[in-house]
């Protein structure tokens, strides 16, 4: 029997995995401890508010690396990450770039997937292609090969539709 990693009393029934930068955090919790942190198999993903999900993530020791959470601010609109934590709303589309490492675990937690698979939009524009190439370089440098393969496909697709 595997015990809950939090209370160490009851049997663990919920297994939770979070990827924070290059570090994988694995937790095995009992139903009660999981529910207290907003992780439940029967709960609806978006029935929780963003502040609740964030509280759950930080309670589990998912600490974002690289960015200092409290002082982080969007260079374009000035929104501080702490304000996003309170309201659950971002200020502008550049916030996604400014807070990328902080938002990545949250997006995966909400949707259960890390990456968009739906409609593409203007992938053939020169600017987008440039951005994709930059990301591919970064993915290769950090040995994130899964992302690199997806990016390579997107660049190919963009080249074809040009």
């Amino acid at each position: 029997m595997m015990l809950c990693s939090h209370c160490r009393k009851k049997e663990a029934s919920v297994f939770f995995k979070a990827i924070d930068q290059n570090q994988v955090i694995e937790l095995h919790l009992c139903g009660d401890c999981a529910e207290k942190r907003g992780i439940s198999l029967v709960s609806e993903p978006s029935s929780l508010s963003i502040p609740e999900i964030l509280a759950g993530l930080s309670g589990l020791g998912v600490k974002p690396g690289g960015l200092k959470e409290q002082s982080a601010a969007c260079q374009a609109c000035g929104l501080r990450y702490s304000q996003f934590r309170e309201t659950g709303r971002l200020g502008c589309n550049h916030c996604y770039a400014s807070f990328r490492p902080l938002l990545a675990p949250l997006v995966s937690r909400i949707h259960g997937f890390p990456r968009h698979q739906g409609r593409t939009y203007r992938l053939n524009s020169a600017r987008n292609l440039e951005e994709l190439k930059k990301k591919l370089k970064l993915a290769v440098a950090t040995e994130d090969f899964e992302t690199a393969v997806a990016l390579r496909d997107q660049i190919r697709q963009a080249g074809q539709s040009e």
Partner: protein
Amino acid sequence: MQLNNMLKLKAAWLSADAPESAIVLSSRVRLARNLERHAFPGKARAKDLSQVIGEIFEGTRKNRIFGKAAFLRLEDLDDLDRGLLVERHLISKDLTAEPANRGVVVGEKEKISLMINEEDHLRMQSLEAGLSLSAAWEALRRLDDELGQRLNFAYDPDWGFLTACPTNLGTGLRASCLLHLPALGWSSSVNRVLESLSRMGVIVRGLYGEGTRVLGDIFQLSNATCLGRTEEAFIDRLKDVVERLVEREKEERQRLCSGPERVKLEDSVYRSVGILSHCRIITFEEAMHHLSYIRLGIALGWAMPMGLPQLNDIFLTAQPAHIQMAAQKELAARERDQFRAEKIRGQIGA
């Protein structure tokens, strides 16, 4: 009260001649989009918000789909007009909270509409009668293609369409169906069935959307997440769940009708006919309760004083803003209930 003409128009989604319309009232798909060069509405200055409305109005006017559309700014409408748009599912209650610099575009027969500067710059929706998610999506996909060429949407190859709240990130898609589930409600198995849905990535809410109680056994089912699959995959999954639920409701109706509970059900349905035919004062909640029974009676083929198209119409027009619009003045709650009773009696022909 500039929108009172709307009362005479029939919204396409009220049609009773659509797939599964005895159980599924309507299908809706919406897409959330933001313009690249402006901060999201919550953070944008008034000047920016006004520009966003201008850009979206400009971009849509040229579109053939909006040939006969109404382009409205919420600040130019009074409370009753705004209430009417909410009750017709064309805008959200949130949009009316701060009417300055909010806009709405209503297409022909209310099939396609746009909400401007709610949480995101643009929310486009497509509304169809019955279980018609694919048709609703097809119309919206075409609109998204066209508007996407005229406007610059905020997009990231990893995260898709960028939205103010990360819960809408990715496809920005929310598909939903309104279902009438009185038999499941009657046998009180509705909660158990609905609970199992949350495991299939589907959210269930009452008629008015988030955080409201269920009126008239009408439930709204929608996809819980919107990133990591294609738009079609999210829609197909919802469709699958809705179809299964429709089957469960049909089975339950069958079971009620052929069992010892039939006479109890008949009693409730015909009592509802009696009350709506003879009442002199009725609240919206009570009217919904009885209309739900009559809707079930119609679906079971029993002798009812109205058909499905009429009933759908009463469902819509018995709501508070519609009642006051029909009375052509603002009414206190008691006067409203009196006017509603009179109007419903007239519609039934009692």
